[in-house]
């Protein structure tokens, strides 16, 4: 494990399917101190709100809400409101009220099939809009303030595993056959604007991440553990392939402030941090004080897309070593990372170098 990083492991007696930091206002650099977690694979699952200050203590559970079906995805819509998607095909909004969670609006059975309600597999939130995809292949556009779902697009004939907003109207979905499809939500037709196979072996795409500043850069992870970087302006082939994980990639994330860092979690139990830069000292602090040959703005512009071409230095740090049980989810806030998986442990890592 890398030096200087501190890790705290807390046994929580539930399998964690999703963890998300509560967002802090955009202009501050203070890391978040609260996160929510959802569990799966129990008779009665739960949503929990945790408080963690980086003082060496374990995170403390502030509130525990029972939730019968598996929680598949948590996605923050605003500073105080997040949406939870469950395996019954429901999406519910929850609000932070003092140190508790209160359920709000709820959309039921968004993905019905002949045999009952299919699970809602992922959510993507953008301003007031939520897009939900499920195992029935449909994509449903929801507006936070309206009970009636907006558009329902029959996106695919098989399960859609991930969805990600690129811009307000441009949405990318990934399905179980390894296809990445782009959609224009403003258009009337139900056909994707482009569709590309992420791998030749028809491996399911199981994670998507959007670059925080360059919206056309997308990272995808598939069932074999391969992470591909795409330029969505010309999405015929991936720009780069990164192979470090031995098993399915479960979660991917670009760091919000330092997009040269990519974090990935996989079913082989490992969590990796991928850093690029021309020298070893390109980091958050270096960026603030740099007087290098290239102006920093340009260096950030094209780093991921020109990875191969300019032979930029790629550093892979292992934040969590591989284990027998999968890690299902991770989230990063400034220099803190929280991740959880089927080993019933929440790992809180602080003092990351980005």
């Amino acid at each position, binding site marked *: 494990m890398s030096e200087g990083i501190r890790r705290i492991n807390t046994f929580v007696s539930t399998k964690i*399917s999703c963890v998300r930091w509560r967002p802090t206002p955009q202009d501050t650099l203070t890391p978040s101190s609260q996160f929510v977690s959802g569990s799966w694979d129990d008779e009665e699952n739960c949503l929990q709100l945790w408080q963690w200050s980086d003082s060496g203590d374990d995170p403390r559970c502030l509130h525990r809400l029972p939730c019968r079906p598996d929680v598949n995805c948590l996605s923050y819509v605003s500073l105080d409101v997040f949406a939870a998607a469950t395996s019954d095909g429901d999406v519910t909004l929850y609000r932070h009220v003092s140190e508790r969670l209160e359920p709000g609006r709820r959309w039921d059975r968004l993905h019905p099939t002949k*045999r009952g309600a299919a699970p809602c597999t992922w959510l993507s939130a953008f301003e007031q809009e939520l897009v939900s995809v499920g195992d029935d292949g449909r994509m449903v556009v929801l507006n936070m303030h309206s009970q009636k779902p907006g558009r329902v697009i029959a996106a695919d004939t098989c*399960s859609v595993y991930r969805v990600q907003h690129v811009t307000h109207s441009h949405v990318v979905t990934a399905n179980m*056959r390894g296809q990445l499809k782009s959609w224009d939500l403003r258009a009337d037709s139900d056909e994707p604007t482009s569709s590309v196979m992420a791998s*030749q072996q028809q491996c399911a795409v199981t994670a998507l991440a959007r670059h925080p500043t360059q919206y056309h850069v997308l990272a995808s992870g598939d069932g074999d553990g391969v992470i591909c970087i795409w330029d969505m302006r010309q999405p015929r082939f991936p720009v780069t392939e990164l192979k470090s994980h031995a098993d399915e990639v479960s979660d991917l994330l670009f760091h919000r402030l330092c997009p040269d860092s990519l974090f990935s979690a996989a079913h082989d139990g490992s969590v990796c941090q991928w850093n690029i830069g021309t020298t070893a000292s390109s980091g958050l602090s270096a960026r603030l004080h740099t007087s290098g040959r290239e102006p920093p703005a340009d260096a950030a512009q094209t780093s991921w897309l020109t990875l191969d071409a300019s032979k930029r230095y790629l550093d892979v740090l292992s934040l969590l070593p591989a284990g027998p049980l999968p890690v299902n989810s991770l989230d990063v806030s400034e220099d803190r990372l929280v991740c959880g998986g089927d080993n019933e442990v929440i790992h809180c890592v602080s003092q990351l170098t980005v």
Partner: protein
Amino acid sequence: MEDDTTRCDVMVSLPMPTHQRLNINFSHGCQNNVVLHAVDFGAKDTDSGQPGGAPAGGGVREVFWSPSEWPGWWRQLASESAGVFSDLQSCDAGQGEAALRLSLLKLSRRYRSCLRASMETVTASDEEDADTHRQLLNSMEMVWNLSEIVLVDQKRGGVVLGQLLDWVRQHATQFDKSAAAVTEAEIPEKHPDYWNTVYGMVLQGRQAAARKLLRLHSGFGTDPFVSADELLRKVPPLAEGADFELRWRHWQAQCVLRLESGEFGYSPRLQTLVKILCGDAVTFEDLYREMGSWYHLMVSYTLYSRPWVGIFELRHAAEDSIEVFGGPSQLSALDQMLQAALDGDIHKLLKTAQATLPDGWLTAHLADLLCRLPDISGAGRPSFLSELRHHLLVEYGSALCASRSLWQLGAVYLDQCGAQGRARLALLLERLDPRTDRRARKIIQMAESRGLSAVASSVAQVMGRRAMAAGQLGTALAWALRSDCSALASQLADTLVKQYTSSGRFASADFVDNLGSSMLKSDRLMFLGKYREFHRLYEENSLQEAASLLVTLMTSQLAPKYFWRTLLTDALPLLELQPPAFSTAQTYDLMACVEQLRRSGDLDESSEEVRLLRQALADNLWRASIAEDSVAS
């Protein structure tokens, strides 16, 4: 013989469709359930005419007879100890004996800290029976600690009294509580528990604490008290070696001298105290109730009679202490386990533990640890131990697999159990219900990484059939390809082809386009792929290639017979092309196909369609012959 068949422990009523001839058949699920379904034994088997058992309606029901959910604190124990278990497996057995014992000791301490962490969680939670659980965990930790002291951590010369004292102090906490009460009382010496606490501190070898309590007595400045205080101060600390024995005997001789000289004559309580220091057996027996347990008596008596003894002599002292407490018949299960641990009788220890503890945690992990010890106490490792360990781990792993959420941990244990564990894991993984895509993918990955491809294929097939029942053909096809089951893939391809025939549209067109090499898994699928390719070629206006593909499809018997009519209808526009898309040979082939259809009676000669077809074929034939002849010339 008594009629045992009418006795049953549990009767469960299940709603089933009522039918006179229905019977119930069952198959095993995981550890704690069976799966029942109705079978119609009255239906005759069509081939042999014998009554067979056809599945009847009513679905399939699972009956569980023990809860498959574990409480939170137990899950914490299971998860944490699974980590220690994995580390134990990778412990190097080839290192020297001392180093090996040290590593095993560290791992043993980690197990105990898992137990203590669970105890804290139980105490922090406010369930009704938190106390019972905490006591259970406490007993388990006690047994483990004693086994660790006696079996794992062997001292040179076998002197263990110091560790045993620590162990007793940790678990006999009644004197701490009373000491707190006594010190807070206004007049400590009048407190009913005062003297018992002083005796208790001395019995546990905590002379400093005893001296502090004595200081609280009003008569402290007097001679007897000063003398007793001095004796307590001069106790030689426990150490190894011959000169410790010498110093200690000298000290005890001092105590006896002072006692017999009558210094403590006026204070019977102090007299009792010094008698303890002199190792007077009668006094110890009188105080047995305060000590509360035979092991406390044994350790305390040994402390003040022969503190340098080894394990072997302690066993005799244990028997004597047990006699004081009423003999072996009065022993509780915990006492029996502790005695077995002290005796080094692993078999009895594990047997009692298995009979009394509610789950196999202690026996499985302890057996695994003890199995790795280098030669135990010179008598050779018991031969039964490795088989017992194997059996216990398989049972524990299976119990984990049977639970709702801990099946992944079960695999960690079953992996260490050789071929039998692997076979058991294969059976259990197959019987897990893959409720959602996510769970199914994890089960399949677990099976594939262990080389259990049959299990992976079977789970994928279940998902495929469920998707098919839900009407999601694309998902079903994806699962069918994942499972390498050509029967399911053919069935789905057939359904898709029939859908096309009825609706004129391709569902899952983009899927079929990108099949690639997985097309080879089933003939029907290959046909579907090629047919789709035909359509694409037609749309792209590569008509020559489209035409040859069409002919290949028909002549190579790849196309199902019921589809030939559609193919021939597709061929019609191509037949009317100028210059001809079909060569003469290809046209003859097409005609042969039409002829085959006619012979099998599938062709309706009177219909307009067929007439057009024959006409088009004939037209194409003469155009093609002319074109070929002119090229030839």
